[in-house]
């Protein structure tokens, strides 16, 4: 009896998050998937039902992959996907290159300093994301802060056109997502056993080689975790390309927005969303077992 209670107790504790995810993620996702298989029409809702009762009592199923073939056939979508992946990959790489040294420095700082330094990394979260991205317009625009400083320093003769380019989108992404890279990396680097580095030095290894041979491979789980936390939202990012990017900045988040709200073509928009999920699930599937293996190895 007691064991049964225990088992049920464990089950009940785990239930709320799963129930939450079922109601607010799985069911909406299935709805989106359903819409992606239907056909667009004028009216409310702006798509045809999948299942219809015909007058003679038969059930008619109107499901098709037409929307997906549209995605594949139109270079706009394919290019948008590729460009999103490209920008997200560059942003992730930049975050890693900036975030790793930062996380390393925080993890090796005197313990009294670590919490304040971490706070500083997390501090931007206290301000609205939208406002922070908006602020970048003020910095990057032709008559903005950055150009002003560069002109004053004499580095450039005329303002650089950074706003409304992929570069502006990248800057915005790296800025916004850097904490998501730093925090998991810090968590990983902080728990590393420093006697391993002493052992490496003791065995004749110079500090930089010891970093490459010991610290870097042991921090791989942190690198993977941080990269996924940056890469996945960056691919589908809408706000940053919308505010900082130009009309030529082709990203899947913007395409999705345009299909839903400008074209009101819900089925194609849903297909775009489903396809994006597939594009993102694949790298996660690839990295997941790898991360697990590393985690065990480091234990």
């Amino acid at each position, binding site marked *: 009896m007691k064991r049964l209670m225990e088992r049920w107790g464990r089950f009940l504790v785990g239930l709320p998050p799963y129930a939450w995810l079922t109601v607010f993620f799985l069911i909406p996702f299935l709805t989106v998937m359903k819409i992606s298989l239907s056909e667009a029409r004028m009216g409310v809702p702006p798509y045809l039902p999948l299942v219809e009762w015909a007058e003679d009592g038969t059930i008619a199923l109107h499901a098709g992959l037409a929307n997906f073939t549209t995605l594949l056939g139109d270079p706009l979508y394919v290019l948008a996907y590729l460009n999103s992946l490209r920008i997200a990959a560059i942003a992730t790489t930049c975050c890693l290159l900036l975030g790793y040294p930062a996380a390393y420095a925080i993890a090796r700082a005197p313990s009294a300093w670590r919490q304040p330094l971490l706070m500083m990394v997390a501090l931007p979260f206290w301000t609205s994301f939208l406002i922070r991205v908006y602020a970048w317009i003020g910095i990057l625009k032709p008559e903005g802060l950055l150009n002003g400083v560069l002109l004053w320093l004499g580095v450039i003769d005329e303002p650089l056109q950074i706003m409304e380019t992929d570069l502006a989108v990248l800057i915005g992404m790296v800025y916004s997502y850097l904490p998501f890279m730093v925090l998991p990396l810090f968590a990983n680097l902080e728990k590393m056993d420093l006697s*391993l580095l*002493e*052992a490496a*030095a*003791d*065995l004749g*290894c110079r500090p930089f080689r010891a970093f490459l*041979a010991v610290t870097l491979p042991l921090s791989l789980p942190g690198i993977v975790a941080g990269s996924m936390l940056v890469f996945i939202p960056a691919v589908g990012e809408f706000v940053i390309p919308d505010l900082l990017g130009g009309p030529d900045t082709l990203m899947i988040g913007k395409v999705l927005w345009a299909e839903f709200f400008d074209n009101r073509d819900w089925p194609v928009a849903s297909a775009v969303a489903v396809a994006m999920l597939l594009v993102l699930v694949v790298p996660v599937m690839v990295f997941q077992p790898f991360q697990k293996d*590393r985690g065990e*190895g480091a234990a």
Partner: protein
Amino acid sequence: MDRCQDGALASMATAPKKPAFSPWTDPAAVPLIRFEGITKRFGDFVAVDGVDLAIHKGEFFSLLGASGCGKTTLLRMLAGFETPTEGRILIDGVDVSAVPPFERPVNMMFQSYALFPHMSVEQNVAFGLKQDGLPKDRIAAKVREVLDLVQMGKFARRKPHQLSGGQRQRVALARCLAKEPKVLLLDEPLAALDKKLREQTQLELVNIQDRVGITFVMVTHDQGEAMTMSSRIGVMNSGQIQQVGTPVDIYEFPGSRFVADFIGAANMFEGTVRKADGQRVVVACPELGRDLDVLHAGAVMAGAPVTVMIRPEKMSVGRERPTEGLNWAQGVIADIVYLGDVSIYHVRLVSGHVVQVLQTNLRHTGDLRLIWEDEVFLAWNSANAVVLTQ
């Protein structure tokens, strides 16, 4: 002192390991390692305080002391992880005080073993050899050789987390041995092992050291371990070396009250010197209610306050008053610690001072067995007491 240590001492007394090996007694011998006036301060805290120490080639030297006595700091300075605040360290005549750890001819076996978790056993062992830029086939041969030496050849492809504590310890040792260092440093090498494995590994480590001929310097807080394994022991307290000597020296002829008390069990009697002629010392001892007669060649002045130390096993206890010998005392049995092979009797003297006496239980049973509140007499030989002046 716990049971295993007595056993260790006994085996040492009957079969000395290396009777001829005592380079420290040879004034012409040049030590391999020399600490010269080494002091290490961390802020206001003095971890190591003016240590002078010489360790010879082929020694198994132990730094013994309670935690916080500075022994690990001293070892880490030898490895190069800490820089001395004052003084210098010479290895093979070369001042290494400013040499970084990756250029020193020493290797350290860490207390946590510090095996690289992402590398297999053989990669761990090969790591140090790769840093030296040895050719691949030489590395492979050396790795196989040292893994066989520590009987870990079968586990070459395992990862550290797939090994038991004892196996990890062997791999850590092999990783150091592969580098053939001039000095191998061991930081509490057996602390992470359980008791049985620890005792077995003690002798194995000594055997391996014998075979490879590398100088070992070990840090330990376990006196049994130090006694069993070392050629010499340096007893440390609050950053200073209290005494350096062979296990027998340290136990039988401690140089200070601290060492006498720290190593093994000791009965201490405070007194004043009544007579001293360079061979014998007579000490007036109120705790004993009598004079103590001790064979002591050192110079002591009449009237000086001294402590006389007698080990519990150097005394005998019985109901009869001893008929010969100058040293005896009368008391009552206050406590008996029966340990099977031996019993420890706590005898309360008339002055209230309690003395520990260790007696081997030679018979199964007997009328002679002492019980609580028995009136007993203690006796000991003048040669078995030690006069301590500091």
